[in-house]
């Protein structure tokens, strides 16, 4: 409190902070980036460990024998799928019933706001089939879910086969204390959404589905299985869910522990873990893995069928079988044993998984970075905004020394101040609202007027509104309140900087990766923009660092990280599809990234654009 109440020390501190403002900001930015890059360095990370007692110490013996039979069932399923031209509902119901499950189906239909060109669907109709294995050992108050998607074409047949095989095997065991629900969902996430909404009696997205006839207890954990070949070389774990939400770290630990025990190669983000952390290539490998996680999390979309479970407080992950050119192969029996082991451990849970971390990044499957370690990286970036705000505040508080009649001058300045701040704020937010609503509203009109498909219409309208927003605000405000004053832009910048700080802080709490990436690009903009910097160059930098360009770079960067570099042409097409996917994710599953960018981040960025063209 001495620092806050002693005027001399306060003055010293404030003069230090204002005098050295720019150097401190630069140092903070560098330190923030360096801290973030350091997170992937193995000595700075923690080894994963099982926190949950109920899963840690118990011994489990896996005995699943029937891999070959599961593959046969998978082939049968594939044949019936081809015959039915979609989900072979009758066959699945019969097969599940034959395996002693209580079987139910759920029909759902959904009309997308505009056609999804990646998956070629518009009017979606489908059926989910699920069977419940009732727990013989306990009251049926809790449940676990194992799901496999029924995808068109030849993929994932083995997953369904293994699911049925496991169902048959589990049915004969007597130790289950939780209901196990075996779910085959059609149309991947849309089916999953319908099923979850039906299970929990909610309807958040306005989808049509028939109510569920049978339920188990409250779902404790879920795994989604994707398997498209008879033998695999490694298993990949996918954690990123809707809005960048992650399951409890113990679920990842469980998977890792069993892979170690059974001797299956396991990966995260498709990257094997390496032991040479002290070499450059080893470090860059773990940076790559972590950056992939950051990019995926920042996108806010569910990266597997498990992604929607997280919204209902259910810890879930997707497990993907990968078949590459490696010599060493694992057969389906082993994968079955792996899953059996995991389910038996989950079966031992006494309460929901909550012991371990929910906020983490993983540079490799055996190491993680927790919130306490990665938040300082963001904090260092956010502190720049606060420093700039403090600087502006001090500048505003001390009137320019040369004017003699300071008091009267200041009052003249402050009265248009409110209006000149309010106008850009309102206008940029209205532009944001336009960016949010117009693409969907105008798609039909655009399709009639121009030779484009609906999806292209939506994306191009979005880009159009975005670009139009650059021309709009600064012209209008000048008309309304005349020539902008020196005080005026300072006030506006103070508001904008604080707005950005709060916005980024909130975003980083919900989805660290998104908040960090936005901070990385927007903080420099916020720090340097004034009406006095060179116009053309600054405008160029501002556009380069705008949210839309950040997304474009992220697309290329993501491809680069996945070691699938694309040409500019392909990258641009990918960029367009990413935008349409983002909008679809919002309307289908309630992802928040699109509204966040359109309604808050973009208007905030426009404020800085406005400041640049203040005069």
């Amino acid at each position, binding site marked *: 409190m001495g620092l806050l109440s002693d*005027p001399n020390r306060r003055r010293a501190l404030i003069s230090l902070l204002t005098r050295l403002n720019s150097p401190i900001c630069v140092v903070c930015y560098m330190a923030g980036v360096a801290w973030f890059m350091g997170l992937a360095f193995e000595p700075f990370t923690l080894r994963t460990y099982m926190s949950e007692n109920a899963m840690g110490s118990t011994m489990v013996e896996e005995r699943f024998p029937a891999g070959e039979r599961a593959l046969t069932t998978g082939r049968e399923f594939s044949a019936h799928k081809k015959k039915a031209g979609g989900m072979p509902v009758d066959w699945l119901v019969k097969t599940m019933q034959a395996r002693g499950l209580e079987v139910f189906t759920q029909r759902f239909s959904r009309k997308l706001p505009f056609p999804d060109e990646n998956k070629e669907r518009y009017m979606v109709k489908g059926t989910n089939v699920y069977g419940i294995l009732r727990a013989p050992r306990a009251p049926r108050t809790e449940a676990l879910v194992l799901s496999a998607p029924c995808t068109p074409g030849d993929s994932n047949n083995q997953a369904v086969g293994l699911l049925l095989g496991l169902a048959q095997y589990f049915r004969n065991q007597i130790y289950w204390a939780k209901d196990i629900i075996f779910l085959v969902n059609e149309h991947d996430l849309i089916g999953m959404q319908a099923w979850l909404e039906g299970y929990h009696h909610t309807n958040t997205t306005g989808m049509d589905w028939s109510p569920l006839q049978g339920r188990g207890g409250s779902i404790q954990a879920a795994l989604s299985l994707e398997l498209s070949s008879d033998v695999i070389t490694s298993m990949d774990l996918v954690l990123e869910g809707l809005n960048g939400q992650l399951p409890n770290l113990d679920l990842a630990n469980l998977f890792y522990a069993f892979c170690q025990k059974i001797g299956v190669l396991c990966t995260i983000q498709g990257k094997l873990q390496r032991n040479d952390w002290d070499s450059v290539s080893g470090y860059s490998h773990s940076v790559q893995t972590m950056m992939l996680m950051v990019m995926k999390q920042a996108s806010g979309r569910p990266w597997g069928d498990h992604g929607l479970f997280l919204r209902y407080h259910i810890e879930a992950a997707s497990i993907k079988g990968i078949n590459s050119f490696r010599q060493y192969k694992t057969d389906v029996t082993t994968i079955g044993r792996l899953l059996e082991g995991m389910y038996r451990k989950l079966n031992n849970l006494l309460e929901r998984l909550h012991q371990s971390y*929910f906020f983490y990044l993983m540079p490799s499957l055996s190491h993680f970075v927790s919130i306490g370690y990665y938040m300082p990286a963001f904090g260092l970036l956010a502190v720049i905004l606060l420093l700039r705000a403090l600087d502006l505040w001090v500048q505003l508080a001390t009137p320019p020394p040369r004017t003699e009649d300071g008091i009267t001058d200041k009052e003249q300045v402050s009265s248009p101040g409110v209006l000149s701040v309010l106008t850009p704020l309102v206008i940029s937010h209205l532009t944001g609202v336009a960016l949010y609503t117009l693409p969907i509203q105008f798609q039909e009109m655009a399709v009639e007027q121009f030779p484009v498909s609906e999806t292209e219409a939506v994306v191009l309208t979005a880009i159009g509104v975005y670009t139009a927003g650059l021309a709009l605000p600064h012209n209008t405000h000048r008309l309304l309140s005349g020539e902008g004053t020196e005080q005026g832009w300072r006030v506006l910048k103070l508001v904008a900087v*604080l707005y950005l700080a709060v916005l980024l802080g909130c975003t980083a709490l919900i989805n660290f990766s998104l908040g960090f990436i936005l901070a990385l690009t927007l903080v420099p903009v916020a720090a340097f923009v004034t009406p006095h910097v060179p116009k053309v160059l600054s405008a160029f930098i501002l556009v380069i660092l705008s949210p839309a360009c950040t997304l474009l770079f992220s697309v290329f960067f993501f491809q680069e990280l996945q070691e699938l570099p694309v040409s500019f042409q392909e990258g641009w097409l990918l960029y367009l599809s990413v935008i349409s996917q983002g909008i679809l994710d919002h309307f289908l599953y309630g992802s928040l990234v699109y509204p966040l960018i359109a309604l808050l981040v973009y208007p905030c960025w426009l404020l800085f654009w406005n400041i640049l063209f203040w005069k």
Partner: protein
Amino acid sequence: MAAPLTLLVILSVTIRAVLYRSSLAEVISERVEVVSPLTAWKRVVEGLALLDLGVSPYSGDVFHETPLIIYLFHFVVDYAEITFMLADVITAVALYMAVMDYNKQVFRKQKYALEADRYPLDCLELIRSPKEMYYIPLKVAMFYLLNPFTILSCVAKSTCGLNNAVIALFILTTIKGNVLLSAIFLSLATYQSIYPLTLCAPALLYLMQRQFIPVNFRRVSFWWFIAQYAFMYLGSLFVIVGLSFFLLGSWDYVPSVYGFILSVPDLTPNIGLFWYFFAEMFEHFRLFFLCVFQINVFFYTIPLSIKLKEHPVFLIFMQLAVISIFKSYPTVGDIALYMAFLPVWSHLHRFLRNIFLVSCVLLACSALFPVLWHLWIYAGSANSNFYYAITLLFNVAQILLVSDYFYAFLRREHHLSYGLYLKRKDGSEATLVLK
């Protein structure tokens, strides 16, 4: 001045009416920051339903508002939205008139002091000009009506708005010097939520100042005035309590309303300090800490009244702030009431020290409340500690804000009597330090 006020009222009513019609209203009325178990509209509706069924509304531990509120809504439940908007408008207009009157008095006092040459010469820049004071009442009304906190509270139909209206009317009648009405409204406010009881100290000080009764414990006139006020206060309180009893036909409401406020059985998270503390505490310490926490609210009255004997209106502001920070079920509506007074003290801005820091923290906390609530309750990834940390920070910021205003007020008074540019004994420039 009436035209801008009318415009302001129309604007604010429009905003509220639009929000009532939007889908946001439902979301807002569920927010723990906006409604408390005492003030939630949902609970009032439940109480009304019970009353219509002929059951005591207090059976079932859902409804905790006073009987007068439930009988009020018994008649106007169909016009609830209008009632709440009206309450806000009444509050704003009452504050507007009160502040206008107060400013006139301040200016008159300043004129006398100037004529009597009581201010040091270098204090001329501290003297307040009528031009600067002209817009203050309007700003006060604006701060109340357009404050997001008030709007949220009104849209959620939190009965806090009605309490605020009663307190505002109390302030208006006190400043106008009407002893009887002041006592009646004070008893109404006390009846509503106990804590405004502490406002009797500033009211007494103000009324005595107005009637030129010296605050002196040896004088009969002093005690006679206190007795008069106490008689009116207790009399009206007795009437109101009796009326409630006859309306309901039982004393059910006393434990259910006042017991509920004082013993804090409902630990639903809110922006206050009670819930987390009492949720974590061992049961056998509960009574002790309950007493400590509750006495805390009332205790500041004594030192503050002694220090601010000469400035009862500032004391009202301080008391309102203390109540809204330390009461057992605070909501943002309570904060909005004392924040409306901030423009009245705009002349203190040059002495405020932490206003930037505090406003940043308040702003950030207001944004973080829903975010951390989401992470805790919906995403399940954060926990109650995260939310409480923000609550704590929010309250620390409020305390800093209030103490900053307190310091600034005292410092201005100090300068007015000792001169603006203080010198040390050796002639160098001195600075005031609060220790």
